[in-house]
């Protein structure tokens, strides 16, 4: 990076939204993988762009179990975290929107999908809708911030990257394409503090109506490789399995589209 360019770059306010994760094998509370990657992005940005201020937000109840998981984020080198206190089962979106609108950070970083609860991955979209900010998903890296415009590298499927320029304020969501999170250290995690902000919680009425059940493991389609040479076998292993018999629907009515999807789900025995 040239020095003259650094002149133009200025630190910005970054808010990182973190949730309580769930270890895939043991189900124990932990720092969520994607949220931790989001925080890692923010910390890397802070190191490169002096003047960047990071605030970490979590909306949820205050409990011992969740505290130890949240301290996992603090151990990455933070002094404090804002806890928007609300009882379990409340809608996090509203209190987050309220807080973000009040504090007006320029960049909001969040994981793509929570490891607990609904895990629908809709939170970034809901936030973007409420705040009216642009959203970039699947972020690989933040390249530079100049005059209120951030240059981002977005990850696309199969290793492709797309460079985007986005006007701030913006929301970006992070998945496995972002760099892995640094180790969380015990000492800083223990010393860090929580700034507890009470919110006016609103019960998640939609969630209350839902029936939750443990997910079944989806059966994996067997990949039968009939290859004569090592080269063919390698190509087969490296290639993404191409869908067969699919069709591209263009200019169809929503009803026709829904019907096509319904038919496919029946064929695949997702719906019975």
């Amino acid at each position, binding site marked *: 990076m040239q020095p003259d360019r650094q002149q133009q770059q200025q630190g910005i306010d970054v808010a990182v939204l973190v949730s309580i994760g769930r*270890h895939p*094998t043991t189900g124990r509370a*932990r720092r969520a993988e994607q949220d931790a990657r989001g925080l890692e992005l923010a910390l890397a940005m802070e190191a490169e762009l002096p003047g960047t201020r990071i605030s970490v937000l979590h909306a949820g109840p205050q409990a011992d179990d969740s505290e130890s998981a949240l301290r996992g984020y603090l*151990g*990455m*080198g933070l002094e404090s975290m804002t806890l928007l206190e609300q009882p379990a089962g409340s809608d996090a979106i509203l209190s987050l929107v309220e807080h973000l609108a009040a504090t007006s950070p320029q960049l909001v970083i969040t994981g793509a999908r929570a490891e607990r609860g609904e895990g629908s991955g809709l939170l970034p979209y809901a936030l973007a809708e409420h705040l009216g900010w642009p959203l970039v998903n699947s972020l690989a890296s933040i390249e530079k911030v100049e005059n209120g415009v951030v240059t981002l590298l977005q990850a696309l499927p199969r290793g492709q990257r797309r460079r985007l320029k986005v006007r701030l304020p913006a929301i970006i969501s992070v998945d496995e394409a972002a760099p892995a999170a*640094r*180790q969380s250290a015990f*000492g800083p995690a*223990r010393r860090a503090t929580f700034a507890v902000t009470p919110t006016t919680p609103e019960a998640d009425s939609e969630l209350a109506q839902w029936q939750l059940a443990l997910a079944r493991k989806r059966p994996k389609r067997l990949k039968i490789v009939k290859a004569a040479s090592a080269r063919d076998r390698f190509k087969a292993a490296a290639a993404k399995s191409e869908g067969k018999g699919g069709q591209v629907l263009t200019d169809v009515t929503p009803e026709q589209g829904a019907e096509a999807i319904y038919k496919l789900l029946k064929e695949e025995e997702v719906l019975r």
Partner: protein
Amino acid sequence: MRLPKSLMAFSLGVFLITLPTVGLLPQGLLEGGSSWLLALVLAGVVAWGLGEMFFGMTWGGPMKHAFAGALHLAFHRRAERFSTKKGGAGRSTGLKALNLEDEAAPLGVEKPADFTWNQLLGFDACVQCGRCEAVCPAFAAGQPLNPKKLIQDMVVGMAGGSDAAYAGSPYPGKPVGEHAGSPHGPIVALQGKALVDADTLWSCTTCRACVEECPMMIEHVDAIVDMRRHLTLERGKTPNKGAEVLDNLIATDNPGGFDPGSRLNWAADLNLPLMADLKQVDVLLWLGDGAFDMRNQRTLRALVKVLRAAEVDFAVLGTEERDSGDVARRLGDEATFQSLAKRNIATLAKYRFLQIVTCDPHSFHVLGNEYGELGGDYQVRHHSTFIAELYEAGRLAFAPWKGGSVTYHDPCYLGRYNGEYEAPRNVLKALGIEVKEMERSGYRSRCCGGGGGAPITDIPGERRIPDMRMNDVKESGAELVAVGCPQCTAMLEGVVDASAEVRDIAELVADALVERPAGDASDGPRRPAATTTAEEVTV
């Protein structure tokens, strides 16, 4: 060479002062102005000589080592090491626990001044004899560690300055003169260079060869782990796979990140008795994390076969067992160690057993020597010790050995850490094996390279430590090397193109098992064997 001169000055000065009292001086010399001058000169000479005695310890000469050494030995951090008791009682190898309750207490050692005063005395006591350097496996492998230089670096750090004056062998690959520090400056720099580099600290396999060898009883390994604690607990900078392993230990209670519920999958067909069902047994068989490793599962199966042949009343914790915390502690993560240890102690407190038997010397050491400080006191035995006892009690009978020549590799955590050199050799002798000792064996055994989290932090060197150890085996001419540790098995079996086979003692014993001679009264309290083979007793 200041000391001989000052000692000579002192003795000459005193000699001259005493001359008048014995009347050997010519009359008149002590009269007049010259006598005062002479008296002043003599007093000065004597003061210099005395100064060497009293202040010389801070001048950095031999008297420093003499004073610091004497004080270090008098106020040694492990006074137990001076015990005259025979056997294992005179050793003290468990790491000291950190106080995690007190939030103000420092987590490990960041600056030279953070070491305890008796540790600092130990560094000053070093006479740079170089015996630690000669036995250090990491140094021999060309990894950037030299225990002698490390201790001298701590001395330099306490005095403040650079290591440019160090005349011995540097850390491999790191020339002297590039590092400098001060008593209140960091030992490992956040960026750039300070007193030592982090990879120096992570090269150590915690084999304690340097500690065993040191004539001044300096505790190198404690100092290294203290500094690692700071790197892990305060900075979150455990290198390479360290962070992943620690995360796995926190989330799944085992370093591999395996489902804790699958800890007993290897024994699905063995119908192992569980502590949860029996509540009270003679022997609790501690499986260790080797239960997830297919190679070690063979050892465990062999050990179960031996225990059943000897009709031992035993049970396992099964899925209630967790990692002992050994790796976490050596990687400096005292918090995870204490968390694992406390939960293991709570689990063990639910059951009644006379002793714990394990085939993992690392678990053996941690359960036996390091849980005590956290409130868990157990009678722990390594499987080789236990098998030797069973044999002596006449509960096992072996077919004569038909294989080739055999050598034995002492695991560091069994030998140097716990003083058990005899039992494995007794078992091999009972099998009819005459052990061809390697040049470095017993308390001078060379590490396999698998301890202290070294395979996880994986600091590159010029050679691999297990390759050097297998070369030792080759030089002994043995066709088979008997081991007693899952780490040693993994490290030594990982050697490409090895000249010898690697077998655990439990496997050798299980292969040699024969039916006990029925009604043989001459051979101890042997009970008649009920059924034909050992395996059928249990099915």
